[in-house]
């Protein structure tokens, strides 16, 4: 018989080992799934996990990997601060949308100036937009003790309605023949988040994501605020004795994650997406939650997890068009990644014993 025995403290070794183990398990289970769908499992796994990085068209995909991973990493870094302190911002998707709308609106208001200050101003507006949207659940929690999970999640749907309204009303392209969608930022150089190095897929959003990783790392390991975040997550009572002001922490964590999500939205709308449109948001805010946990809420972990998640997207798309895998099979694969991670987490907190069950 297998029995589980609680470890006195979480195993450091397993904390590091479980994410790669979850990836391997996902590959195995995915291969079985693909085999049942009548596809060659080895080829499918190779198409998803290997080809985008080392295959024939890697020159294109490697860059795309960064393009896809950057918003995920940027958002996940912000979320991880709150998650560590037990503050659950589930509405990054909404903050992402509002950041994009605010940033785009500022840029479009200056159309067609060629002033180089326009883009920095848009970045600021994007961050403020996301921050302000996150301040709603933060303020409600601080003032009335509402649940930030529900409020932030519900605000996603409000943000989606605002997006639909903005793209068919306020921000609609006046030269777009009545069709919804804003002007394309590719045709507005002063506001365009162009590639800095196109073949590498590097644009300002990628740069911002890397900066966020570094800052989060320093904050968590060297700064008093980082200590407060960690101690609040581990023991709220101890944190109170250590002089942590919970309201300030809530405002900081939700505000920062909102601002980063807003930035991600701004870089996306002015770069890869190119315009505000009704379906502009594509779930980055929700996927980033998986990325944050997959990365163990650690900045470096999140960096790697974001790249891995991007790989499953890009490889998954390639598998769809080259092998005819259904889109839902790829989504199952991505879901399994989080599922296996949570499952093998047991190993971090428990020790598996072979033998008879002992009396509890």
């Amino acid at each position, binding site marked *: 018989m297998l029995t589980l025995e609680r470890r006195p403290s979480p195993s450091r070794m397993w904390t590091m080992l479980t994410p790669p183990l979850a990836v391997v398990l996902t590959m195995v289970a995915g291969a079985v799934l693909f085999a049942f769908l009548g596809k060659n499992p080895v080829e499918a796994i190779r198409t998803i996990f290997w080809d985008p990085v080392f295959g024939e068209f890697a020159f294109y995909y490697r860059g795309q990997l960064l393009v896809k991973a950057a918003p995920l990493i940027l958002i996940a870094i912000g979320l991880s601060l709150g998650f560590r302190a037990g503050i659950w911002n589930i509405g990054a998707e909404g903050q992402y949308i509002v950041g994009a709308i605010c940033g785009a609106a500022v840029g479009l208001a200056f159309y067609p100036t060629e002033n180089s200050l326009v883009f920095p101003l848009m970045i600021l507006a994007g961050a403020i937009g996301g921050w302000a949207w996150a301040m709603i659940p933060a303020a409600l929690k601080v003032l009335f003790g509402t649940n930030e999970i529900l409020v932030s999640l519900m605000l996603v749907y409000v943000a989606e309605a605002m997006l639909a309204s903005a793209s068919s009303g306020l921000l609609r392209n006046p030269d777009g023949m009545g069709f919804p969608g804003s002007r394309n930022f590719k045709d507005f150089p002063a506001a365009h988040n162009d590639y800095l190095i196109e073949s590498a897929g590097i644009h300002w959003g990628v740069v911002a994501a890397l900066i966020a990783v570094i800052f989060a790392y320093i904050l968590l390991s060297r700064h008093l605020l980082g200590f407060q975040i960690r101690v609040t997550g581990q023991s709220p009572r101890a944190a109170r004795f250590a002089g942590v002001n919970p309201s300030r922490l809530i405002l900081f964590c939700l505000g920062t994650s909102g601002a980063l999500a807003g930035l991600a939205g701004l870089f996306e709308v002015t770069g890869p997406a190119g315009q505000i449109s009704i379906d*502009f948001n594509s779930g980055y805010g929700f996927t980033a939650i998986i990325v944050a946990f997959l990365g163990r809420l650690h900045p470096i972990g999140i960096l790697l997890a974001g790249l891995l998640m991007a790989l499953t997207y890009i490889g998954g798309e390639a598998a769809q068009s080259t092998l005819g895998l259904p889109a839902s099979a790829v989504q199952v694969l991505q879901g399994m990644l989080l599922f296996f991670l949570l499952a093998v987490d047991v190993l971090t907190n428990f020790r598996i014993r072979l033998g008879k069950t002992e009396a509890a």
Partner: protein
Amino acid sequence: MNRRSILAGAALAFGLAGAVFAQDKTKVGFIYVGPIGDGGWTQHHHEAALEMQAHFGDAVELVYQESVPEGADAERAITQMALGGADIIFTTSFGFMDPTVNVAAKFPNVKFEHATGYKTADNVGVYSARFYEGRAIQGYLAGKMTKTNKIGYIASFPIPEVIRGINSAYIHAKKVNPDVEFSVVWAYTWFDPGKESDAAQALIEQGADVILQHTDSTAPHAAAAKAGNVYTFGQAADMAEYAPMPRISSIIDVWAPYYIERVQAVIDGTWESDNTWDGIGAGMVGIGEISDVVPADIRAEAEALRDSISSGAYHPFTGPLNKQDGSAWLAEGEIADDGTLGGMNFYVEGLTGDIPN
């Protein structure tokens, strides 16, 4: 610009490589906005694609990608297909317009066909169907069949294609029933059974006994069937499983002949950028069988209307017509030009409510 030309150069090299392969097999790609089993828009495009492949047999290889979001991901999905050696790529949703044009600029040797858009290039053609012709027949039937004189309309997005449909249906309902009133609900989705069902229910509760839809699921039919004496129309697909009640007719998208023709042109090397907008006459818009719940004389008149539109004898937008604000639009006998129809952003006189702006 330099940075861009690196990729363009690489793309060009692969485009040429693709052309070499093309001699034995033509690779045809499809990008879909929804799942291939959505029962409406995407499923119909996919079935037409399969029909096209069956027509050519081994000469054509079909690749497709479903559920592609209309944002940054679309551009990558299309690039992926072009890199993979596709000779022609059909992008089947309005939101793929800018991504299609962007990718096309990098792959001059690949042909692109974008559905329902308006931006063309040397290697980008656009195609759409004159669905408003079918709406005229629906409007006629709705005006004749309603007893409460209230007609519900589930609209998707306030874009010209949808507004044209509302106007066309209203004009022809009003013509046969001057007391008719339209309530339009904007669902802001092409496919969302839950929302569509809610919209249908709300309209029925307000007294509507005919529901028109510009969304793709069968949910409104199910809601109508539950309510009893309510009539509906199939959208994109025939939706015959709800005939003879509540579904009394339908507008069917017929893409296969166009796909076969355009792929043939690629094989023959005669493909040129086009701007195709065909209706009932050319066979791109099909009118589903009018069920026998509709009295025989009304059915015959509806079919006569269909035939007159099909032959070109009658245009659904023929004056005299005024805009909603009362200003004159078309004089007696005047026919709307395609430019105005293509960018239509106003209601005709008599419709109430505003187009969301």
